[in-house]
């Protein structure tokens, strides 16, 4: 490339200007206003290209920045990267202080020493997580995978995979210090992803173990109580029990149905207490038009209701639980005259 001396100077100045690109325009103009003339003097006095004699434009710009940038009329506005670096430095300094302060808590000079001792434990955990993620990706059996890395529901595979994951992770962990920069970064990034996936898995495992008593009732179609909306409890005389509470063998309250009501005019109300029935006026055995204290109430023993009929023996398949599934109840019809008082009262 053939250039005149002036071209060379212009190119050099241009490159210096570019290297100072983060400075404000006005500051840069001021700093460089004499540079072409100055470089002309340099070029006129001696042999060799400007780059040979002055170094690269970038190095020249760095020198210029250093010698001109700090004092008097040259405020050096901090760039974004400087601010970021500053914040990082401050954060690191605080971390170091906290590190030393927390040290005695772990019986060490610094808390980080304790964390370093925990490293092998992390390797084992990482191996487990990696095995879980691998199993989760490879398993297409559709069965719930559980807490072991099962593939196709096989425990043997799970244990093999677990052993491989843990051993591999330990091997990697012991080598990671000697890895080159990029493989090390990749390892760290992989670990971060694993931790995130593990957090997600942990949260879903946690919520499914907490929600287990309810989840099946509400969402599983094969559950016989899946379409239960409300629950009506009757005593032996067929009287509706209001505000009943039901529990399982562990004393956990059972929750069935939808805790809201539409009354006769279609108004929606939330039910706030876990007592049954939610909507007493929807009593399936209620005598239409009956009101409290009428003859109907005297006949059946309960105001406004006529009860589900005689108490069936438990062996009667069709009437195991009339209160839960009234549609399948043995009582042929909730007729107003069916005798509902069992002789064994008292």
């Amino acid at each position, binding site marked *: 490339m053939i250039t005149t001396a002036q071209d060379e100077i212009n190119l050099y100045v241009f490159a210096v200007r570019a290297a100072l690109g983060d400075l404000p325009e006005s500051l840069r103009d*001021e*700093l460089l206003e*004499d*540079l*072409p*003339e*100055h470089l*002309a*003097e*340099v070029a*006129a*006095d001696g042999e060799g290209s400007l780059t040979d*004699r*002055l*170094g690269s434009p970038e*190095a*020249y*710009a*760095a*020198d*210029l*920045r*250093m*010698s*001109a*940038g*700090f*004092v*008097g*009329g*040259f405020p050096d506005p901090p760039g974004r990267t400087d601010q970021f670096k500053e914040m990082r430095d401050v954060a690191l300094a605080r971390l170091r202080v906290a590190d030393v302060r927390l040290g005695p808590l772990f019986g060490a000079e610094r808390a980080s020493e304790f964390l370093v001792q925990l490293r092998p434990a992390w390797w084992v955990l990482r191996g487990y997580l990696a095995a879980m993620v691998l199993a989760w990706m490879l398993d297409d059996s559709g069965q719930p995978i559980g807490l072991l890395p099962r593939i196709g529901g096989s425990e043997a595979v799970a244990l093999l995979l677990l052993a491989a994951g843990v051993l591999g992770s330990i091997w990697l962990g012991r080598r990671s210090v000697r890895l080159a920069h990029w493989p090390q970064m990749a390892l760290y990034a992989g670990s971060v992803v694993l931790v995130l996936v593990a957090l997600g898995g942990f949260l879903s495992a946690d919520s499914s173990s907490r929600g287990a008593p309810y989840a099946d009732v509400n969402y599983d179609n094969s559950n016989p109580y899946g379409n239960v909306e409300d629950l009506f409890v009757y005593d032996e005389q067929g009287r509706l029990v209001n505000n009943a509470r039901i529990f399982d063998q562990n004393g956990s309250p059972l929750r069935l149905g939808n805790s809201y009501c539409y009354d006769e005019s279609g108004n929606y109300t939330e039910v706030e207490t876990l007592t049954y029935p939610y909507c007493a006026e929807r009593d399936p055995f209620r005598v239409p038009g009956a009101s409290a204290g009428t003859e109907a109430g005297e006949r059946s023993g309960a105001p406004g209701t006529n009860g589900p009929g005689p108490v069936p023996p438990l062996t009667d398949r069709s009437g195991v639980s009339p209160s839960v599934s009234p549609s399948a109840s043995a009582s042929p019809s909730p007729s107003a005259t069916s005798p509902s008082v069992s002789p064994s009262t008292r």
Partner: protein
Amino acid sequence: MDTTQLLKGVLDLACLAALRDEDGYGYDILRRLRTAGLTEVGDASVYGTLRRLFNAGLLTTYVVPSDEGPHRKYYALNPAGRAELQRSGKVWHGFASTMDDLLRERETA
């Protein structure tokens, strides 16, 4: 020891001193410093330092047209610059003699 590191600290004073007896333009001042023995001083450093001293109000400038080349911007010490030269000169002498003493003690010890 790296003299470029030392130079960073004293380049202001060196430039002021180079202008004590005679005004000069940028490249001229660089040559004076190099002739005086500061051979490692960089072109950009001198240029930047002169800009900074000027902006700090220690130098005045004037332009002299030149027939054969570009015009030259001359730098000259103003009273503030002379005062600064004197003050910094004292600091330097104190510093240099401290260093001298320190090195002498080390050598005899």
